């Protein structure tokens, strides 16, 4: 394995980072360990569980299936770009109110899957929500309260408009 380093420029949550990375470094590891953005979690490293889901140029993708070098010149958003503990994003607020998280490990992945989904589908049916999160595994909640939270966020969003 060559240890050659490649220069990359990546915009993460609106901040431009210039780094030199090995070709094999996973984007998930780059975000977590090189940039210290620990909200992106790694659950399986083979693209099934969805815990590491981030937005790559606006689309939800698995950061464990992408190398950091492939993010060169691209724009990434992680859970840290949503709300803060003092000022939650509306979807985070709905997750809180509906008890849509328990251990919280899968939660950032669900949020990053659902943010673009709700933008495209502001009034989803329960079935559409279930389809949307079918690529994210949660072992704690049984998904019931996640679906409720998404409906809550959608309802509040349409009230606000």
């Amino acid at each position, binding site marked *: 394995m060559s240890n050659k380093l490649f220069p990359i420029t990546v915009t993460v949550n609106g901040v431009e980072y210039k780094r030199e990375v090995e070709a094999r470094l996973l984007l998930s590891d780059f975000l977590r360990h090189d940039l210290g953005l620990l909200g992106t979690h790694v659950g399986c490293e083979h693209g*099934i569980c969805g815990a590491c889901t981030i937005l790559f140029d606006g689309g939800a993708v698995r950061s464990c299936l992408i190398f950091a070098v492939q993010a060169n010149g691209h724009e990434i958003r992680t859970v*840290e770009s949503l*709300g803060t503990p003092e000022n939650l994003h509306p979807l*985070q607020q709905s997750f*809180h109110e509906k*008890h849509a998280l328990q251990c919280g490990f899968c939660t950032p992945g669900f949020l990053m899957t659902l943010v673009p989904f709700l933008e495209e589908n502001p009034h989803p049916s329960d079935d559409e929500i279930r389809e949307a999160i*079918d690529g994210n595994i949660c*072992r704690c909640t049984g998904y019931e309260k996640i679906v409720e939270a998404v409906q809550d966020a959608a309802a509040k969003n349409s009230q606000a408009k």
Partner: protein
Amino acid sequence: MTEKYFGKPIKRLEDKFMLTGNVKYVDDIEVPGQLHAAFLRSDYAHARILKIDASEALKRPGVVAVYTADDFGDFWKPGPLQVPPPTAIPGSQFNARTLVPIAKDKIRYSGEVLAVVIAESRYIAEDAFDDIIVDVDPLPAVVDLEKGWENTSVLVHDDLPSNMAALVKQEVGNYEEAKKNADVVISKRMLIEHVAAAAMENRGFIASWDERNQEMTIWAGTQSPLTIRGSVSRALGLAESQIHVITPYIGGGFGPKVMTSLADDVLLPWISKQLKRPIKWIEDRRENFLATTSERDQVHHCEIALKKDGTILGFKDVFYHNTGAYDSYGMTVPLNTQTHTISNYRIPNFYSEIRMVFTNQMVVTPVRGAGRSEGIFAMERMVDFAAKELGISPIELRKKNLLRVDELPLNTGVIGQDFVVNILDSGDYLGNYEKCLEVIDYEKFRKEIQPKARKEGKRVGIGVVAFTEGTAVGPYEGCRITVSTSGKVTMTSGYSTQGQAHQTVFAQIIADQLNVKIEDVRVITGDTNQFAWGAGTFASRGAALVGAATYLAAQKVRAKIFSTASKKLEVPEDELELCEGSVCVKGQPETTIPLGTLAALANPMRGVVEPGVEPGLEATAYYGPPHGSTGCGAMGVIVSIDEETCKPVIERMVMVDDCGTMINPLIVDGQLQGGISMGIGNTLYERLVYDENGQLVTASFMDYLMPLATDMPKKLDIVHNHAESSLKVNPLGIKGVGEAGAIPPGPAIVQALEDAFQDTKLEILESNLSPSQIYEYLKKA
């Protein structure tokens, strides 16, 4: 007591940090100077080790050290027996062969650790696997439980005469005598398949030896931090005060994270001490599948004896239980199976025999449901078979034999995982069942929905089962509550947290007892420097045991608050009351004294208490129940199935549950829903499959199918049906609820599937059914 919080659906205090990525799980902890460990694991399930040569690995840049079993010298030894054998059961036999931290001479399961590589990065550590030469002599693997039990089998442990890990016989009444009076006797062989806990966060462990202070700090994603502190202390010859185990946020537990004496918690502290560097290891998903513990996997030979009118005379169950290659966790799982098999119905004569078998597979320890699911499955299936044989409705047969309110508490005579005789303490079993029939509208389904569907050529069936959940077992848990001079309250406990909302529910109890804002209560769990006594997080016991201890400690602090305030204000205690965050004089609301001020005064240095008096607005309390308390309930499901694809769809599910007093109904529903998803997954999707060579062929989420959002019931109702008797089981009347959801979906779904094909001879004899297996069953029907 004013109850502003207790019993209310209080939203969780921990959420806002978790939701924003502002909490730390074990892999989020970076210790300056840390090195990374990777475990080279065996590809073979059973083999003699001829040679392991790691010399080339040491030449790789970035590799700091490589260890094989021989490098650990005298430190290498089989680990402790984490759970002792059931000496309380007369005649029980148990062969302890405890986990070894790293394979020496012989490999006993695929995934067992052969070498530890320490490197500057995890990437480099795993690269070095290619440099290590492992020469082994493969042996035939013990995979099948019944064949493995035979005297002719290959041996997992060469020094034992057979693969018998344990043999336990428990009998109540006399089954063989009772059978003579039976009109009907039915015998069946059933399989309960092997499943993974599959918490979304894998395990992780960091050991950091501080040479200057002679102290070891450990961060571990564990359900039992105090067990780790004790075992590291013994293994390294250190005082427990030299070891600080911290459990950070944990991404789900579900059982296996209670297990210790694995390679990480044994070897990494030793290596950290040797190298004087922090060592970090984060398990990957493949390792979790291969080598972290898992559960179920039993073969039951059941027999039920009944009178023509449906009265059950007796039940016999000889079952094989897979313990894997070692049995450090004793017999918790099969003992749970034994107790739960006769936990619902009036069974005057019962014979149960555990045949616990060593195999060349990963070690088996409790997973949510933990033996209970197996016992309930075996009994519920046999009741279904009996109903068919007798021509009685499965509903009526259950109603006839379910225990009545006035029959409880009932001493079943069967000794359980806590080594005391199982007591069915409380609940309304028949009432739960009838409630479930009512909510799912059984009559309407039978009379209208099912006949209509059949006319349209659709297959739809219903199943309604009863279950119990043994919870809240001892020995004990404890906590300490302290009021700070700022008025903020801290509760510390040895219990660790994996998402069960402990930071909220224990705070609810304290906030009410001390009349403070819930936001002013901080709950610290699983930090051995904060609180050093307790057993660990398992068996649905947190709310009941830690909750009771919290209530008792809060009572003591409350008494101290009043006595301190009484001295300061020179007012008798009975004229004082708690106002929010302070003490005030009844009828004189302007005369108040804040709790923070009282905390300062409760110190002989500067206060109103005498020297020699226990200082502080602080108290510790412990709670240990004489026996566990038994949750109970019923589950109904309506399942439709496409005959072409054999894909079942859960149209409707109703769960009736009695978990006693609820501290927080929002959290209880979350626990039940999560358990239900696991029960559905176990029944329709999840299955660990070992081939004949002992290779796990489902070691990824591509092969091991987890239940997803689209697999859940189209409509799910949870009904709380709490009997009066359930509210008195311990100081707060709390039963556990963590495992209930996972228990009944299996027998309920298979009953419904058989019902959908009631015009055929479909008979389901296992707990996990993929569409292709259903297809095979239907071909035979």
